[in-house]
């Protein structure tokens, strides 16, 4: 046991230096002013941006739901394939992630643009052009496209563990397809669902690249807001830290609610 502790030491140092200290610094910045005195001024200022918070949560939520609906059947089909085919298919699912995140999102900019390929194709059949870029729909699309694999993977890894004979037992006991889905497959994949939701929702709610590139100026998200406080003209690190702190609390609350739905031994975070 003692030796184990020695091995754990580097991680402990890592956690303190790169996780705990920054967290405390964020809290410190959020709760002090330029003179270093305690104030809740910045935290209460966050209230002004409630609409941006609501929009961020809303878009991230929609993206998460779409990811779940798309990934669930895909992950299930994947998990039922021949073992040797599964590897290849997983590779195909993961393939887009090997490309640079910026590049992928940039590609969507040109695809969705007013003179982009999609509008060009619509034009061929006499439709459009539609306003596709710089809409909240484009932001959701960007989120879904970029984060879908993070939904597929945890779902898949839970579903491959569902034994084929358990599904056969369900049909043997009178279940049709829907019964099997709701009585066996979904309950057994709850850990995958919750961790998939976490892995899509958390990055989606705090993204700023996607909204900047696909959402134009009118679809500002929390991520953009925070970025502006540190790198933009509105330079105000105290407010930026306060927004981060509030966002953290919101995510924490949402995850706590999520955990109520997971089995006891599968707590997230």
């Amino acid at each position, binding site marked *: 046991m003692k030796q184990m502790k020695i091995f754990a030491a580097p991680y402990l140092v890592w956690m303190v230096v790169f996780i705990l200290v920054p967290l405390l610094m964020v809290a410190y910045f959020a709760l002090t002013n330029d003179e270093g005195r305690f104030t809740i001024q910045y935290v209460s200022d966050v209230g002004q941006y409630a609409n941006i918070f609501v929009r961020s949560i809303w878009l991230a939520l929609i993206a998460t739901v779409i990811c779940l609906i798309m990934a669930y059947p895909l992950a299930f089909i994947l998990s039922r394939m021949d073992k040797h085919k599964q590897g290849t298919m997983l590779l195909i699912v993961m393939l887009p992630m090997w490309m640079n995140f910026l590049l992928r999102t940039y590609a969507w900019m040109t695809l969705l643009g007013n003179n982009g390929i999609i509008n060009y194709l619509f034009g061929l059949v006499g439709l459009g052009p539609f306003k596709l870029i710089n809409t909240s729909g484009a932001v959701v699309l960007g989120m879904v496209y970029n984060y879908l694999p993070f939904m597929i993977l945890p779902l898949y890894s839970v579903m491959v563990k569902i*034994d084929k*004979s*358990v599904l*056969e*037992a*369900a*049909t*043997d*006991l*009178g*279940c*049709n397809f829907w*019964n099997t889905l709701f*009585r*066996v497959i979904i*309950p*057994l994949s709850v850990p995958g669902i919750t961790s998939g939701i976490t892995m899509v929702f958390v990055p989606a709610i705090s993204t700023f690249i996607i909204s900047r590139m696909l959402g134009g100026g009118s679809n500002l998200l929390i991520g953009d807001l925070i970025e502006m406080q540190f790198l933009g003209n509105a330079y105000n690190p105290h407010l930026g830290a306060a927004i981060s702190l509030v966002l953290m609390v919101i995510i924490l609350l949402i995850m706590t609610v999520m955990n109520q739905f997971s*089995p006891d031994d599968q707590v997230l975070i």
Partner: protein
Amino acid sequence: MENVVSLKDIVVEFEDGERILKSISLDIKDKEFVTFLGPSGCGKTTTLRIIGGFIEPTSGDVLFEGKKINGVPPHKRNVNTVFQRYALFPHLNVYENIAFGLRVKKLPEKEILRRVGEMLELVNLKGFEKRTVNRLSGGQQQRVAIARALVNQPKVLLLDEPLGALDLKLRKEMQTELRKIQQAMELTFVYVTHDQEEALTMSDRIVVMNGGVIQQIGSPTDIYNEPVNAFVADFIGESNIVNGHMPKDCVVEFTGRQFECVDKGFSPNETVDVVIRPEDVKVISAEGAKLTGIVESVVFKGVHYEMIVDGVDHKWIIHSTKAEPVGAMIGMTFDPFDIHIMKKTEE
């Protein structure tokens, strides 16, 4: 008695074109305990899955109470299965596992409570209702699997090597238990095992299979006393199997000597299998004996001694209540009706 399940010329080929079942035909009667017996890989599970509806035969018909049920999915068949490795629902406790089929049928809560209660009593699992299934022992999981199937009161229960993972003592207990349940509830059991002793003790009828072909169908005593070929004889208990031929009716020649027997109708130059059970070999004095051999080994088996006797052309297995000293020369003889002559099966 009416037939509950009938299989008519069932052929199963998997994608690779390999023929797993080669024309299986069988009638299973109401309230009967039928056992599929055969070595691993002979197609027992496949046959059971045909009845359960998990695979469709390449050709041939499956009848349930006289009606063709080819293509009917498992959830619409009045048949339940106890799977080879239990296949319990890991997300449900013991009670909910057993209640599963009743909940799917949307029975009232009160009736579910009553019927699950009866089952818990039947399989001796009262007090385990709230336990999650992966915290049960193998034997307890097995009993949950049986209760989960039985609670639906199926016409036919399919059991795929249900006791395979249990230790010997527990297996013996469960054999008696299952037989009792089957008789008390007046159900038809279709049971799969590769254990010949299990098949002999539990079944009304045994279906011996090998290589996707039914070798013999009969009661345990028929199968044991009148095996139709050397495979069945060897699979059902140990046997001495030697090549021989019959110069005339009621005389068989093997290992160069002629013996009186009771079989007739083979042509003089046809090679036949001569099968003699180890307990039917009589040990006599070597002097004047037609057949002699030297005792190679003696092992005490509880009720009898098992001796291997080297008779030059064949090593004889002999079961006897008296042990002979190793290295001794002994004589062997057989009663005419203990010599079984069988047609050679082409492999």
